[in-house]
């Protein structure tokens, strides 16, 4: 477990937004994640890739925030892709039944390729 202050970075690649949550994903950081995604959704972006490579720990509040993003995208018929997830994170999402509501890729480029080649 690394002691990293939570932050959210993001960038736009083509028509997809890539979000980088970093550190412990809890209520405040989860809100930042929702806000960050909301900004892109507000701009008409419907494809969001969440790169979890720097997320070391998550709690149930953070998970509920992620569910909020899933719901927001679902409402606009958008797509959420999760990448670079640790086994722990994957298993946790699996445990909670979240996997069927997101697309999971090993790395960010796979998700971007998928979003480019597939007409969504």
């Amino acid at each position, binding site marked *: 477990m690394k002691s990293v202050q939570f932050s959210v970075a993001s960038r736009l690649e083509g028509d997809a937004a890539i979000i980088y949550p970093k550190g*412990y994903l809890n209520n405040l950081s989860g809100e930042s994640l929702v806000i960050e995604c909301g900004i892109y959704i507000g701009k008409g972006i419907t494809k969001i890739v969440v790169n979890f490579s720097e997320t070391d720990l998550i*709690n149930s509040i953070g998970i509920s925030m992620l569910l*909020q993003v899933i719901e927001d995208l679902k409402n606009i018929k958008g797509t959420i892709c999760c990448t670079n997830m*640790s086994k722990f994170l994957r298993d946790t999402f699996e445990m*909670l039944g979240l996997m069927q509501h997101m697309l999971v890729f090993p790395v960010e480029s796979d998700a971007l390729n998928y979003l480019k080649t597939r007409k969504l």
Partner: protein
Amino acid sequence: MPFNAIPAEDFLNREPELNYLKGLPKLKENALGGDVFLEGARGMGKTELLKQLYRNLFWENNVVPFYYSFKTANLKGAYFAKDYFTRFVRQYISFVKKEPSIADNVAKPLQRLMPAISSLGLYWLIDYIEDFQEHVSKNDFYWQLVAAISAPVVASRKTRKPVIVMLDDFDAAARLYDASLGDAHGLISLFGESMGNRRCPHVITGSAGALESIFTDHSLIGMTEQMRLGPLPKDLAVALFRAHLTNLKIASAPGLQFEFLDILRGNPLYIRNIAKAAWKMQKKELNEKDLIECYSFEVSKGETAFYCSSVFSSYAKNPVKRKAMLKLLMYAFENGRIEDSKRLSMVSGLGEAETETILGTMENSGIIRDKDAVFQDFIRCLFMMEIEGRNANDAREKIEAKYKSEREESCFELVIPMNYNAELVVAKAVEQIGKNINLDSEFLNFLQLALIEVCINAIEHSGSYEKKVFLKFITKPDKLEIIIENSGRPFSLESLKEVPVEEKLRIGMKRGWGYKLFHKIMDSVKVERVNDRTRVILTKDIKVKEVLQ
């Protein structure tokens, strides 16, 4: 018997006390004191110290030693007087002739000693014996007692040699009686004259509280100093145990640290009994596990159990009181305290007044105050046998299992404030604890998540004014147990309902994952309410694959 003391070289760490007691005649002659009350917990070696003193004085020849144990004495006055008198005469002749066998031969009547006394030219003693027998033939109870108790004083006066009088378990003398129990209070005060004599220092053992109520003459208490026999320090306790093992021809395993002996708190009696148990159990090379086995045997059915049983029986004489006392003691040991009798009468199954009486007896006995772990384990065994109906082997195994698992476990405690991100401190702690026992990092992530969820639950929902979460981590080779406690609103697993993700999305309810998480991660989740606190107990069995090899 004064001569059945352990070898002097095995009598450790009591030299200062022994030397001080040997110097008592000089102190008393100069009116600087001279009577000593030996104090110490059960088994601390008070009787053994008296016996060592006796043996030293016997062979040094400057002071006459006299030892009398009230433990086994017949307290009917006439019997006692005869026994006390005869033992003194026998021990005195034994001392003069330097023949220990005379002192030990209790079957030899006084008449048969007369030729020996005569050959030693102790005519004053012959006169004194005749005087005593005259009191007996006249059935003069009072003078029999006075003559018996005064015998050491008379001997010191006639020979001008001090007599050290050693009275073991002296408080029993308070129960001396004439014809029936309790018919002659205060006979013990007849010892006052003897104790006040300048040539007869007295060394007595017994209960301090009892002695205060015995002597109406407070000047006697004033001139009696207390000498406390403390436990043997750890190194000497180990040395004594090793000496016993050597005598019994038992080796100890290479590198054995004897850590388990700490539980005996340097008590020489317990130390000796464990060594003897090892011999009885035919141990050839002792290791830590063997020590636990010997100990469990001792507290369940060994000599220690026998000894503790006699102590316990002296406080709980009838079966009803015995059972009630066992229940109360167990309650006190488990809870670390005795509460009000109103509540405890439910535990004892007796009325409030009777419970109060038993609690008073327990308080005076010092059983709880002493915090003697050995005696507590004996009581646990007795409870299992007499209340729960288990057999001695079963009780022994339970005690054994308790210590074997305790040796292998470690415990950490942590208190966190109900502050933002405080749960991360817990996550960090469990990470290090897990590393200490070589758990793999992925498994640790799940443990962290489970704990974070319980802590968040407490922080968010308890409404606690205390604003603290108390955590205890107990690690065992095959199990990790985490106990989380906080005050505030009760929390129950029954009140929680699992909602599927689809349903959560449909109804817009995104919270409520915590329960599902810690339930899925841990093997067992228990929630209890203890007074005003909610206690969550998380248990995880550690499988081989979860441990880094």
